[in-house]
């Protein structure tokens, strides 16, 4: 062993893999130079049941392969055997952590194909529910990035406030995790009495949280040392690998469906998504912190602008045998992870002919993550994965 290298804390390259003839490294497990490690499918650093097959040399990753298939429930196929209204409790589990965009895109597809106009009040309530969903995700997602570097304190703070937001969800929708609030035609209830005040009380805590987490994470030498320069996504990869949402905005590409293709009431709201150019884990985390801040502001705007009363649901055909004419559509919204869309084909029957979900996790975790992990330290795997906000339930649905 090279003593000089050891004291300089550099990786020992003496037993590194050799170059092969085709330009690829020779991955010869019998050479005793390499180790194969499976991270997942059950691992605290993996946000769900997904597995990374890592080939490591010492603590450096030389090759990574994402394996999925541990969480496949076949929702898209199940929906082909469900009436349109029955798809609605099915679709929410496609992304467990943030169920509301699932409900919205399904409803939007059905409404678009059957030509239903959603009432004004329901549109405001949908916008509110979607922003609340983003809020509760980011309350864990922002401090969760520090959690991957073993700084769990902010995660505890965020989780508490998230629980309060779930209380608000509970009183608005009747459920804490699976809200089942946005359904084809509209929503399932007006705001309860005193909701706005309680929400505002919670938002004040989020304001405080934003300051505290800023001190804890972004002015933290350890976090900066580990996150800055880690897993940089080159700008030309954004299109190549289908990078969306915060990850794209951290690379300087303005990608936010709320702004680029406004839906629901976003055109009436005043907001400017944050972008930066560093494109590393730190930059992506800062983008998320700004997203959280913007979401708080958006919820306040929505509550100020929305009417007090109104129709919550448009009349629909009888849901027991709702037939939608032949057609196809793609409807999308902005989830906390990026553009989240659904492609639906109908054939005039009571069930969708084909449903296909297009979420950012699929490309982020399958194609992009494999590339970003090469040359990274094994201890940074979770950090890189969380910075892409991969959601295994959404990859596999």
């Amino acid at each position, binding site marked *: 062993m090279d003593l000089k290298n050891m004291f300089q804390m550099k990786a020992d390259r003496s037993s590194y893999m050799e170059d092969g003839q085709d330009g690829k490294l020779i991955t010869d497990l019998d050479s005793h130079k390499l180790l194969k490690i499976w991270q997942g499918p059950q691992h605290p650093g993996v946000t769900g049941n997904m597995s990374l097959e890592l080939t490591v040399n010492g603590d450096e990753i030389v090759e990574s392969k994402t394996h999925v298939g541990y969480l496949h429930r076949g929702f898209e196929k199940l929906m082909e055997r469900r009436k349109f209204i029955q798809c609605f409790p099915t679709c929410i589990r496609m992304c467990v952590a943030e169920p509301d965009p699932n409900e919205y895109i399904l409803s939007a597809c059905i409404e678009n194909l059957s030509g239903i106009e959603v009432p004004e009040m329901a549109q405001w309530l949908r916008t509110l529910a979607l922003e609340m969903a983003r809020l509760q995700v980011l309350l864990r997602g922002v401090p969760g990035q520090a959690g991957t570097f073993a700084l769990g304190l902010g995660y505890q703070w965020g989780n508490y406030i998230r629980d309060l937001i779930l209380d608000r969800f509970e009183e608005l929708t009747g459920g804490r995790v699976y809200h089942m609030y946005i359904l084809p035609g509209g929503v399932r209830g007006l705001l309860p009495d005193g909701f706005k005040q309680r929400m505002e009380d919670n938002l004040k805590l989020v304001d405080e949280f934003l300051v505290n987490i800023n001190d804890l994470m972004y002015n933290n030498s350890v976090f900066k040392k580990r996150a800055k320069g880690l897993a940089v996504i080159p700008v030309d990869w954004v299109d190549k690998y289908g990078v969306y949402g915060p990850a794209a905005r951290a690379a300087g590409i303005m990608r936010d469906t709320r702004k680029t293709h406004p839906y629901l009431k976003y055109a009436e709201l005043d907001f400017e998504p944050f972008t930066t150019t560093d494109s590393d884990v730190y930059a992506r985390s800062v983008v998320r912190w700004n997203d959280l801040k913007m979401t708080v502001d958006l919820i306040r705007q929505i509550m100020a602008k929305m009417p007090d009363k109104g129709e919550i649901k448009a009349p629909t055909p*009888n849901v027991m045998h709702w037939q939608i004419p032949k057609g196809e559509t793609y409807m999308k919204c902005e989830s906390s992870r990026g553009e989240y869309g659904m492609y639906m084909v109908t054939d005039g029957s009571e069930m969708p002919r084909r449903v296909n979900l297009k979420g950012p996790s699929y490309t982020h975790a399958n194609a992009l993550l494999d590339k970003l992990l090469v040359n990274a330290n094994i201890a940074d795997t979770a950090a890189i994965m969380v910075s892409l906000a991969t959601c295994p339930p959404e990859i596999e649905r």
Partner: protein
Amino acid sequence: MSLKDILTPFTAWKRVAKDPVTVKDPFNDRPGADRYRGFHKNDVDVCIGCGTCEEICENEAIDLVPYTDPKDGDSGLRPRVDYGRCCWCALCVDVCTTNSLVLSNEYTWIAVDPEEYRYTPGVDKKAWDDNEKGWKKPEGNYEFYNLKREDMEHLHPEDRSSSFVEMVKGYSKEQAQAEADRCVECGICVATCPAHMGIPEYIKAVRHDDMEEGLRVLYETNPLPEICGRICTHKCETVCSIGHKGDPLSIRWLKRYIADNVESEKYKEILNTVDLDNKDKKVAIIGSGPSGLSAAHYLSLMGYSCTIFEQYDKAGGMMRYGIPEYRLPYDSIDKDIDYILSLGVEIKYNTRIGKDITLDQLGKDFDAVFSGTGLHLGRGTGIDGSDNEHVYFSTDLLRQITAGDEIEVAEKIVVIGGGNVAMDITRSLARMQNKKYGKVDIIATSLEREENMPADREEVVEAREEGATVNPGWAPQSIEIKDGVPTGLNVVQCKSLFDDTGRFNPQCNMDNKRFFEGTMIVQSIGQGMDLTYVSEEFKKNLEFGPRGRVQTNQHLQTGVNWFFMGGDIIVGPDVIHGIADGHRAAIGIDNFIQGINFEPAK
């Protein structure tokens, strides 16, 4: 890296003095929110077991299981929830046709036996049964199906009050499909319909604009859809599950829509009756009313040659001679009857059993005999003056109107009776008064008070729209006669109809008297059967039950094995019971002739 970056994170220590936010006491319940979707509750007295909850549940968590204490218009089932499958989406609550199913806000439940998590809400008592909070169907215009009925267009009262043109215009295609869309296919109507028609199936055919399929479904159980689509007593609509929160489906008008929209020339092809079997057996049918026609239709399909004996010169029985043309036009009757005749059914008109041919002779000439002779005799009030020649029975008058006989319509008329037949004669005479005198002056009075009148509500309303006076709640006492002509009807106020034991025993307030003027009095208080065609000798073999009705077995077979009876003389009275009886008797006769579970004819 600055010194600030090293020191700032330590500001987190400022929170060390704060109280922990985690709940310190995990044993106290935290109640769910007011809208929380917790465990199911069901008001089993309101629930009708329609099964829409079972149908909409995408997890198949709901099964309908038998219930011990059902009510009328009830499937006799109640939903049982399996919490191994339930996902608490509450679609079952939102779709519930009676709003009986709700969710409580209770969400904790510990049981050792997994089977306990499958229970019938409302039947199996649970701690949260009295819990008022929890998910209920959202208020406002939040419906999964349209509760409002498609309006049916009627002729304006002014246009119809002097003519016998059909007053109900019928649905357009758009209206019919919109109305058919409201059906939840629960099938409660099927159980209630005496003929057990495939109502959800033909409504589905309307939705899919498949009239041929609709007609096939109709003819499976009802060979008189044109007629039933107009004048059926629609017991199905009374129990329609949608009717619990909104307007019941217009099942009757949808049936009419199908029948109206298929040309009679296509019937045989659609119903696949071009070639029929021939069993070389003969059945005689007495009376061409609904039960007789229905029996003839189904017997013909089975290959029997049927002969109907009809006392008048046209077929249809009470449907033709009892129901006014503005409710049931004659061409609609003819359309249904002509199709049945096209199956090879023969009708001998102007032939009365007992006079032209005896019943015993029929028994000898045919393999079996079905009698559906109906209730044609008017029942009298028996009050003073009711034997006057200007005091009529409604059945006689209605028959004369149909036959085109001259009727001397008086300027002032009083009708005694509050049923549908009373309304029929009132409205028919009102039209004739309008034609003759240019004004309507007719009073219909009944023992029953307005809210208890046996007539359909719309009949009363429409009679008033056409200028007739309906003045219920009076007991007729006597008819004043002057110079051989009635001058009016003396009545007293009727306080109650039934005594404490539920027996018919009208109580009157003799101090409150009224006099309804009229030179023509019509009695319409019910009809009786005319069994004079059955000889006394023959009657000895029959068994008679309450109200003089002949007793029959489940196949409508009487004490004489080749003699079957059905229709108004056995059940009802209404058309759909007659049709159901005709079908039932046809199956019974078929079994009897083939000797299946029956002693064959001698």
